[in-house]
């Protein structure tokens, strides 16, 4: 049994696997399958200052080796999270990344300030949601805006701050450097890639929002490339995600430079995916005689 524990920004994770924000709600639905304590952490559903109803349906479309979603940050609001979901989650013995979003830097900062007095372990600031008209990816696609919102949230909280980056940019390393300079303690990437499908019989987009975020195995090579580039460009930890569906994928993303790995769409295919990935990582490490998963982080040897 290899040592699977990792540390990100001084925060301990018993293993590197974290269900990604948006696929896992606040965890309750998946406790029917396995104890949440088997996970390294959880990135909770993106939560805003006030309740949001989200976009009209259809919000989901399948794509080759992946899917599109345009949920649009439907969530019950941060007060509900703090009062109802967080106390329950805190009893579950896993590291909690509270994912937050907002339409303005002020709103993001206000949400972060509310979490500052709670026992969440880390804040993951979403500046990359492709499905909302204000905020969301609008923050994440400009270095100045990304830095501005990061700075405001940084001032609002002492919690370790992870900024979740959009891949829908010309240079993700520039955005990563901008948020690092603005006070981010870590970055997580990649959020979904903006995509679209059209029903050729009706000539209507499949998604009611016309466009949506693409995820699933199809985006994995892009995630590997971006994690590798960002890990080489910044001095803060990188949490990797994007199409991870096996222990081998998770190992690959860590070799690219990720200190921990989030799992998203794979959970829709197999609800047990995160715990299977933990087991598979352990098998891989044992088969190679590697004592600690920390020993593989960033160990890719580029040509």
């Amino acid at each position, binding site marked *: 049994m290899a040592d699977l524990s990792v540390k990100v920004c001084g925060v301990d994770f018993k293993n590197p696997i974290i269900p990604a924000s948006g696929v896992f*709600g606040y965890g*309750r*639905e998946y406790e029917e399958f396995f104890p949440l304590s088997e996970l390294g952490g959880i990135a909770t559903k993106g939560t805003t200052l006030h309740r949001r109803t989200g976009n009209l349906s259809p*919000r989901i479309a*399948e794509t080759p080796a992946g899917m599109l979603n345009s*949920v649009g940050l*439907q969530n019950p609001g941060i007060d509900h999270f703090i009062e109802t979901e967080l106390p329950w989650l805190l009893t579950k013995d896993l590291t909690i990344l509270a994912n937050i979003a907002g339409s303005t830097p002020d709103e993001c900062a206000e949400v972060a300030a509310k979490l500052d007095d709670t026992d969440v372990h880390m804040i993951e600031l979403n500046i990359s949601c492709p499905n909302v008209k204000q905020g969301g990816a609008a923050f994440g696609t400009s270095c100045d805006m990304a830095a501005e919102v990061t700075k405001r949230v940084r001032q609002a909280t002492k919690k370790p701050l992870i900024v979740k980056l959009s891949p829908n940019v010309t240079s993700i390393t520039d955005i990563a450097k901008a948020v690092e300079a603005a006070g981010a303690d870590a970055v997580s990437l990649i959020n979904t890639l903006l995509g679209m499908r059209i029903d050729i019989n009706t000539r209507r987009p499949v998604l009611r929002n016309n466009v949506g975020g693409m995820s699933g*195995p199809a985006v994995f090579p892009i995630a590997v490339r971006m994690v590798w580039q960002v890990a080489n460009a910044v001095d803060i930890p990188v949490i990797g995600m994007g199409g991870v569906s096996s222990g081998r994928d998770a190992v690959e993303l860590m070799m690219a430079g990720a200190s921990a790995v989030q799992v998203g769409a794979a959970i829709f*295919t197999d*609800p047990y995916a995160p715990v299977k990935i933990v087991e598979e990582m352990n098998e891989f490490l044992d088969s190679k005689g590697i004592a600690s998963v920390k020993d593989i982080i960033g160990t890719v040897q580029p040509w």
Partner: protein
Amino acid sequence: MKYIQGKYIITGKEAIARNIYSFEISCPEAASLAVPGQFVHIRAAGHTLRRPISICGINREKGTLRIVFEIRGEGTELIAGLNKGGLIDMLAPLGHGFTLSPDFGKVILIGGGIGTPPMMPLAEYYGSKAIAISGFRNSSAAILQDDFKKTGAETILCTDDGSAGIHGFVTEPLKELLANGGIDAVYACGPMPMLKGVSALCRENGVFCEISLEERMACGIGACLGCACRTKRNDEEYFAHVCKDGPVFNAEEVLW
């Protein structure tokens, strides 16, 4: 325990109409948990998303569930290619089912096309108290009529082209039955225009009506919020989710 996921043996497979298949699946635990109106979420090899399919039969003694589904695309085609004796990867039972009452004297079950299968567990429950109205494109698309009769339910068949039964929509016999009175509940599943028509008739007649909806879905258990449906709760608009709050909704709650 509310739902489970695993691989289960297909104990029966039958093609019951063009591109429509009936599977019997041995899954004692899921069968013991399932109630009429719930659905199962089936993995199609190589696809990211599972396919939600309504439950057509619950046999607790045998420990089986029956599903009847139509090939709609690549995913359902792959599932239809599975064979008796093989394994099916299923997450079940899911969703919120129909409201059943032993006090109801007479109920109407309305199925439109591939919306007909979820009416079968209701027919099993109500037996001769049920009138099953089914609508199909034509006679060759008609399914489950003998199955309904075996439960003791009265059957009324409608086809769009008049090739079998009544030439017309299911709302025509429904209108007559409601006008005659004595109906305690109407349950329906099928295309949205049909459900809208059924709901309107029930409202006019003051009859309790539940409808089963479908929507593009990802997790199937209420976590991802993908399958939103506009509903009204306490006079406020609320985006409910077909997989967890539904698929069965009170017709009065749905905003069309």
